[in-house]
């Protein structure tokens, strides 16, 4: 069960939670499953080993995906079709220049109705589509601190659903 802490400042809609271990990271991912909608762009921020791909694995499991969830570092994109939803998992870690985003023709994925989960979006700025919601994972003792920050109206609706439906 994930407990979210709202910011004391009402104008700040972000959610905070502590993730003790990998199981918690997977649970947070699963909590996203009922909250995502077509066209949503989610940035996943955090250093190597913070658990970004683990979070995506939790989300995909939550959506009913039973296959493996591999890191997209080498492939740049791993596409999934789950619950009649197109989901694209990106990782721009290997980019040496943001123009590679355009050269690889990846902008097409963002104009469609799919859900885009993006690791290392800063390496593709300013070309990558802006996020509706940003999830930041930071090392916190032996666990992680997760901050979910909505940035658009679509993102705020998603955050409301996440907070109302904590993972089991």
């Amino acid at each position, binding site marked *: 069960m994930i407990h979210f802490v709202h910011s004391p400042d009402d104008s700040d809609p972000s959610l905070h939670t502590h993730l003790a271990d*990998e199981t918690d990271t997977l649970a947070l991912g699963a909590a996203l499953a009922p909250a995502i909608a077509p066209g949503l762009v989610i940035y996943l921020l955090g250093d*190597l*080993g913070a*658990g970004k*791909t*683990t979070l995506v*694995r939790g989300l995909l499991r939550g959506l009913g995906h039973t296959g*493996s*969830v*591999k*890191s997209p*570092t*080498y*492939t*740049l*994109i791993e*596409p999934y079709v789950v619950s009649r939803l197109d989901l694209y998992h990106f990782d721009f870690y*290997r*980019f*040496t220049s943001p*123009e*590679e985003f355009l*050269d*690889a*023709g990846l902008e097409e994925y963002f104009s469609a109705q799919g859900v885009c989960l993006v690791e290392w979006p800063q390496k593709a700025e300013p070309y990558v589509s802006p996020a509706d919601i940003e999830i930041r994972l930071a*090392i916190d003792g*032996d666990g992680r601190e997760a901050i979910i920050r909505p940035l658009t109206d679509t993102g705020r609706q998603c955050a409301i659903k996440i907070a109302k439906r904590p993972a089991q």
Partner: protein
Amino acid sequence: MIVLGLESSCDETGVALYDTERGLIAQQLHSQIDLHAAYGGVVPELASRDHVRRMPALIRQTVAEAGVPMSAIDAVAYTAGPGLAGALLIAAGTGQALAAALGIPALPIHHLEGHLLSPLLADEPPSFPFVALLVSGGHTQLMRVDGVGRYALLGESVDDAAGEAFDKTAKLMGLDYPGGPVLARLADQGTAGRVKLPRPMLHSGDLNFSFSGLKTAVMTQLRNGSHAPADMAAEFQAAVVDVLVAKSLAALKQTGLSRLVVAGGVGANQSLRERLNEAVTRRRQRVYYPEPALCTDNGAMIAFAGALRLAEGQRGSETHVVSVRPRWPLDSLAAPG
């Protein structure tokens, strides 16, 4: 019969000519990889446009190197997947266009089939059936190989590939990305066991791998203590190699086969080779590797796989439709004929 092979699935643009009578007669590769590196860490250079720029010149150079006219080419084999769609389309488009212009068949080839069959290009090739360990920056798989196009997946990484774990761990240790080869060299100066890292899924009872947690374990160790970087590198490499060796041996045992083929960039890792050689020899089994230059992505393995498929009766496409498969499970391939 002369087959032209084209590869552009990821970072390398590769072109080669394979002659069924004379073997590999010419090959060109555009890559910044140091082939003498401990394994082929991929240099990021992902632009499909780079493949477009390089491919025609590489084809001209390859044909010139072989000293044969274009009209001597009997078929074109190209990587059709898996990989980046935009990158794959370059070899596919070029291959089909050349085939149409020359009036010869074009064969779409699975990238991993190319790797898997590349040890057959060696002077003492293994005979079928064998177990193949495909281990690179993008893949970690164990495969049962009964013949060309007859592959059964035995196990694979559920998260990061082994080479990816090398590169990312190197980065965590402050080495430049992709630092896998540097990490492997650093490991030679350290002692495994002074730092303790887990051997993920060593006793999972199946033939799957997981390397993502190992990277996190390194991060935790780096934060919680002071260790000599060389010792950390040595323990990390030992952890990866321990798991790769144990699962490869388990795959041989499970299938009852006695020949192991190792392909892919990480297959060039010296420690992995030493440990596999020792373990396999002790069991009176045998391990086979491709030539070091063929461990990384290249056009030669694609030309060779195309030639093997043609020799076994596969017919190339004559409609010249350009299509690629960014996702393409290797064990979904059909045998030629």
